[in-house]
């Protein structure tokens, strides 16, 4: 079974991002970039499927600038077999990504597409669903467990207040939630091997996809700074403040 995994290059989760001074975007100058954590989980899941003998080939695909090769190489070091970079300098939005992925799906015909439920930069949580709609594949979102069985896959979904298990006919799109697995480290021998694995580069044009942004960002600003707490002298003062200042009682 062929598995396609989408990986996105994003600002590292541990970086404290700052808006640019003109408020047009987040400042990405000299900021550490990494593979989106949810995508990393998707790669790990694909690799586990391969280790179980379920998956036969894993293709890691990324859409972004040339440097996004780094994230594909990470996926290759974790165990993906080959990579595809759809190179563009455009700020590609979920619909554009989904269309590009559909073109790749048409070309590669994977049985399973595993991707993060969202990227930690845009927090959109749309691409997987859009891809499923565009391709007509079944979708299992927010997966915390994935079990492939013959022509179908059982996906346990994290939903409000509990878990829901759905059974999907393959081919299907699965989006990962945090508890699906704990990704491994890329070992140095595998990082070296990854350098020799094939990595093809395409462009949206070659795939016939228009990735022009449809949504315009008006302004980016940091959240309001939290005010320091205060100490109250006694319960009476606390009650007074809750009543008159916070107006919660």
């Amino acid at each position, binding site marked *: 079974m062929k598995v396609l995994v989408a990986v996105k290059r994003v600002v590292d989760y541990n970086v404290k991002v700052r808006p640019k001074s003109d408020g047009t975007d987040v400042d990405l100058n000299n900021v550490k970039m990494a593979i989106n954590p949810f995508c990393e989980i998707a790669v790990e899941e694909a690799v586990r499927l391969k280790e179980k003998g379920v998956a036969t080939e894993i293709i890691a695909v990324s859409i972004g600038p040339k440097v996004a090769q780094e994230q594909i190489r990470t996926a290759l070091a974790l165990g993906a077999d080959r990579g595809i970079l759809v190179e563009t300098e455009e700020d590609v939005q979920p619909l554009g990504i989904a269309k590009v992925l559909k073109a790749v799906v048409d070309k590669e015909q994977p049985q399973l597409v595993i991707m993060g439920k969202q990227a930690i930069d845009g927090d959109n949580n749309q691409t997987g669903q859009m891809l499923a709609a565009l391709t007509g594949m079944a979708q299992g979102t927010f997966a915390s467990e994935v079990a492939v069985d013959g022509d179908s896959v059982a996906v346990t979904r994290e939903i409000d207040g509990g878990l829901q298990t759905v059974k999907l006919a393959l081919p299907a799109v699965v989006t990962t939630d945090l508890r699906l697995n704990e990704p491994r480290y*890329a*070992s140095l021998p595998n990082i070296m091997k990854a350098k020799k694995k094939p990595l093809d580069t395409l462009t949206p044009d070659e795939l016939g996809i228009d990735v022009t942004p449809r949504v315009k960002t008006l302004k980016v600003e940091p959240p309001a700074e939290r005010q320091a707490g205060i100490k109250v002298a006694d319960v009476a003062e606390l009650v007074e403040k809750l009543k008159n200042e916070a107006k919660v009682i």
Partner: protein
Amino acid sequence: MSSANLHSSPERVIAELQAIVGEDKVRCDADTLHSHGRDWTKAWEPAPLAVVFPRSTEHVQAIVKLANAEQLAVVPSGGRTGLSGGAVAANGEVVVSFDYMNQLSDFNAIDRTVRCQAGVITEQLQHFADEQGLYYPVDFASAGSSQIGGNISTNAGGIKVLRWGMTRDWVAGLTVVTGAGDILELNNGLLKNNAGYDLRQLFIGAEGTLGLICEATMQLTRQPKNLTAFVLGVENFDGIMNLFNRFQSEMDLTAFEFFSEQALQKVVEHSKLPRPFESTCPYYALLEFEKLNDETEEQAMALFEACVEEGWVLDGVMSQSLEQLKNLWRLREDISETISRWTPYKNDISTVISKVPNFLSEVENIVNSEYPDFEIIWFGHIGDGNLHLNILKPDSLDKSEFFEQCGKVSLAVFDIVQRFGGSVSAEHGVGLLKKDYLQYSRSPEEIALMRHVKQVFDPNGVMNPGKIFD
């Protein structure tokens, strides 16, 4: 010196302290006396007279003057993460806590310096530097609790010494109150100042025995770029040294740490962290460097390959994100916290780097042969010749018996330290824990001079008495 020597009654002394800092800034409740009367060493029962919380250098000066007048012993207290009993008050001393002196001020972007009150927490300074686009490089596991004053008093080292040195290298100026009660402004942030003795250096690492550090002008530096870590599995200790030499000869490492499989096992179990890789190796090395571009990565990978071919390295991983960098570091940094439940007997010893392998195997042989029941956990900062030998208390032994036996181990270990020209305390200081062993690292002449120096700054012997030497 203890409260028994006081000129006035304890009540009167407390009232005088209250007159200096205010009533609510002198505490005598059992909880505070217990928490602030000791550091991370758990061997001594805290029993201070009071804990006082000054808010200014003038408060500190008044306290020290009172101490001289009343023959009152003063014990400085910072983040209380020391490991040698330097901040233990077990004899009716007054503890001077810097918890309320935690302000940063006078940041200068050109000099890249900032003034810190002694109670500024190490991490607070690190974060401040980060916000200015700069870096404060002294770092260690307890950075979230330890205070700058304590860092300076113990000349704290940590995990980045290989590249950035000890706390001493980052102190551009000091404001101290001497044991005699004088306020001294030392060095004023100057980079070059050869006008006479550099008294600042005497206070750094003096463990509060000469006076109290109230404020410090700390030097900051540029931020490192894209720090990346390798964790490598290593066959034996010689392999660690070989790989260190190989990397160090071609790259600027920012850290080189090692730990044993036993240490890793305990941390993984305690912190629920993933192992770096599936295979188990006797030792692990953690290397950190700035990954400036693809070339640096290529170079590091080529070095790794060479070390594998030599048979020194068995396996390895590289951090791919800051999260992974953090988690790989935790494998090393969480060791102290993890093993604290076994009441470890800690030795913090050093030698010159070239002698480390022989030194380590001699120490290991002696402990293994004389105390086969003791479990040893090794870790340390190979890059600077500093080894942490931790002996875990077997459940069958009670604390006092265990420490008594460890005292004997120490003699044997320090004998080796002496033969290797090493130090009985590489970065933890002497405090109470190591004072009986000072002569293994320092000559009688040196120790006599130290006593003279103390006499000059602290004529009445009120400053942290009984620490470093009696």
